[in-house]
């Protein structure tokens, strides 16, 4: 079983987790509440950093793909669906990605979601486009599709599609600048 060389938490990496070359994961503590049964539960690309305080609180159908050259300073990802983070994405402190506003670790969900067939959805519940920047304490909920090159302001709450090269901010969030 694979382990992290620098790890302080006495747990191997879950078998359905893969970490690319020259990438960094702070600890297997990130999988304290990990229940994904997908073939690929978490896939981290090359040259990406997942730092202290990040958590993958995934349910059985949860699946997270992180691209290359991404930085997650300490995001909590709470999902029983598919989440895709493309290359060069920067996610600042205390950001949460969740299926709904009342996200909680799967151990605290008493009922299996209806209509589940054990496979994750093809379409991601949340998608963060290449080179997007997610500000501190922002909250992304299902339906959030952040276009490539866009910026989500600090503490914004987003559950809708944001076009590429825009700036979205506030709670409720609104698009405050649009690029070319």
């Amino acid at each position, binding site marked *: 079983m694979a382990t992290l060389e620098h790890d302080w938490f006495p747990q191997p990496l879950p078998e359905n987790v893969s970490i690319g070359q020259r990438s960094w994961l702070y600890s297997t503590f990130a999988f304290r509440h990990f229940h994904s049964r997908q073939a690929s539960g978490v896939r981290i690309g090359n040259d990406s950093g997942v730092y202290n305080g990040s958590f993958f609180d995934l349910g059985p159908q949860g699946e997270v793909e992180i691209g290359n050259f991404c930085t997650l300073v300490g995001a909590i990802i709470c999902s029983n669906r598919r989440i895709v983070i493309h290359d060069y994405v920067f996610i600042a402190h205390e950001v949460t990605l969740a299926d709904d506003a009342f996200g909680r670790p799967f151990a605290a969900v008493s009922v299996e979601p209806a209509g589940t067939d054990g496979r994750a959805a093809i379409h991601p519940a949340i998608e963060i486009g290449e080179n997007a920047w997610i500000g501190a304490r922002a*909250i992304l*909920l299902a339906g959030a599709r952040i276009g490539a090159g866009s910026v989500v302001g600090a503490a914004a*709450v987003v559950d809708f599609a944001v076009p590429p090269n825009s700036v979205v901010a506030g709670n409720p969030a609104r698009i405050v600048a649009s690029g070319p």
Partner: protein
Amino acid sequence: MSDKVFDDIVGSWDYTTLPPNVRVGQGCWFERRGSFARLKSVQDPGLIIGDRVQVFTWTTFNIEPTGRVEIGDDSILVGPVFMCAGRINVGRRVILSYNVTIADSDFHPLDPQERRLDAMANAPFGDRSLRPHVISRPVVIGDDVHVGIGAIILKGVTIGHAARIGAGAVVSRDVPAGARVEGNPARPLPPQGP
């Protein structure tokens, strides 16, 4: 990592080692011992936790000597930070999601002159007995309320039964039973159909 330190963060520590003014119901699960490290209440009880309450790693009970927090049966505390100088009451079957803050006081004076005195009294070697008086007003959260990720609930707020507090909402006024509020400042949304 030694077994004991490991136990302290995965819920397998001995809950009977909590201070005697903490009342714990049946079937509870407390992930991290450190959630209770800032419990300074001298009230008896200072913290009451009902049956089958789950407390996840991010939760912090920051209870001043004068404070008392009560949590109802079957509630799920994912990551609330309780800042309590007086009373915070949480009902049954309540969900408090990640990064929620509930404060029953501002903890510091609004008046700038008094705040300077407060700063001096709070210095590392300051005299805490010189801290200016600050008010606290109870926070009451009804049964079946769900509080969204990152929401902040401020002093004196009463949230009625089954209300929904949106992610990131800042709540400084009462929320009626069954209402949905969102935003900063929190505002009501039109009622949702079935």
